[in-house]
């Protein structure tokens, strides 16, 4: 078991958990949380794929860094909209 495989499986697991919650929850905050978990899962998959015997590839690392910053921006926007709407019951 090399670390790439373990963390590849972890990334896929995170993706599965997030998809499951995303499709079964209507709470806006929980959906935002699920999307964040999904993004972490994708980042983990990318980093696991970038990890090879010759060390870690720098370009996918830059992709993931970009992804993290983009995601916090989108999350802030989502939460601002959710707060403007207030609690939504359904």
């Amino acid at each position, binding site marked *: 078991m090399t670390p790439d495989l373990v963390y590849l499986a972890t990334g896929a697991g995170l993706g599965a958990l997030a998809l499951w919650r995303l499709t079964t929850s209507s709470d806006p905050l929980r959906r935002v949380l699920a999307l964040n978990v999904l993004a972490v899962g994708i980042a983990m998959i990318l980093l696991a794929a*970038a990890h090879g015997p010759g060390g870690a590839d720098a370009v996918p690392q830059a992709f993931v860094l970009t992804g993290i910053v983009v995601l916090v*921006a989108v999350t802030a926007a989502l939460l601002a909209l959710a707060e403007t709407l207030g609690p939504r019951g359904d």
Partner: protein
Amino acid sequence: MTETLVLLSLPFLAALAAALHARLSAPIGIGATALNAAAAVLIAGGVLREGPATTAIGGWSSPLGIPLVVDGLAVVMLLMTAFVGLGVAVHAMGRSPMDAGPARLAQTRRWFWPLWLMTLGAMNALFLSGDLFNLYVAFEILGLTAVGLTALSGSRSATAAAFDYLIAGLVGSLMVLLGIAIAYAAVGQVDLDIIPSLVATMQGRIALALIVAGLAIKGALFPLHFWMPAAHSSAVPSASALLSALVVKTALYVLLRVSLEGGADAAPLRALLGAAGAGAMFWGGWNALRAERLKLLVAHSTVAQIGLIAVAIGVAGDGMLWKAAVLLILSHALAKAAMFLAAGRIAEELGHDRISGLNREDLRPGAAEFAFAIAAISLVGLPPTAGFIGKWILMEGLIDDGAWLWVGLILIGTVLSAAYLARVVSRCLRGGPHVAPGARRPEWRSGDAAALGLATGALALGLASSIPVALLELTPA
């Protein structure tokens, strides 16, 4: 290369200036949009003279760096964005959004320009990019600006639609990102040139499927269009026009690129696009027929028209029919922008936008109604509009191939669009005995000029379609 410099940096700088200086935001916005249009014309001239060119940003050649691809297709899309944007900007200068109260109005006016200019910068970046990850980042900017434009009216329904739009958009871009991750694992790089090698392996096809699905959400392609009618119909008119005419086209553009790069091996992908497009034509058409509000009808009509464009991409094969898809994209951009602006103006004049109440005896049809009618003619595809040329090339190619099923489907889709647009046009333009003798005409606004100009553009593009076609010849396939 000064033109590319202007296209890539001016909109962003102008957006920041407009964000920081509220009082000057409108002049900054209109000035930057006009300069951007000039740069787009110059770059188009350059491509016509010297042919397509690829430059490496920062001097780092692909795959390490990001290639900037200036070819016919990219330039046509840049021109479309620049001029439709200019039309909408003229409208936004003097608009008075119907949904916004006085307190909200200042906020709406304040933030429209920064958001639009960021949209413009992101679209320029997107059309020129030759790298999948770079496209993803550009899509993220667009996703946020589009949501900002949707929420600009401040109404509760618009905010709710904006939230759903952002969730859908984020799911879409995460799917694209996941596709990029798998593409990286499969072939070790992520520029657009890898698509042929992606099509060759099972892993690559999974990656491509994820990317296409993500783009389908962003492009509101049936059945992943669920977020779109609410978002497009609850925004202020100029925002709706930008969203419907331009923003969804970016995803269609990338789908077209993927289909072109994929060549003959991408046939399953195109079959999928064709099927989804056919579904969209009927679903969107049916909902537009039943819509009770004008803006909702226009939004559902976008679903149907996107379907038609997807069908055009789908049936194009690896031949030259894809140019018909581009012409349809152009004609839809012009016509739909005009239509949303006109719809906003009509609603403002009437005080509501119920279709059943469009024909009023004390109000003569004005410029907005005429603009709507011309745009409708282009969308249905009557000569001499650009919509007609696009459909003509498409049908001719399909008949040559003997693809009668698609010919039939497109004809039915056309009849549907004629039917739902006639619901509006017949009421809008009713004259003669139905109008009382003393009926007033709606007063002239600068916004009417924009709607009329865009609609006339759709008409004129049909007569001048040789220009985009000549540019499209300069796309290495």
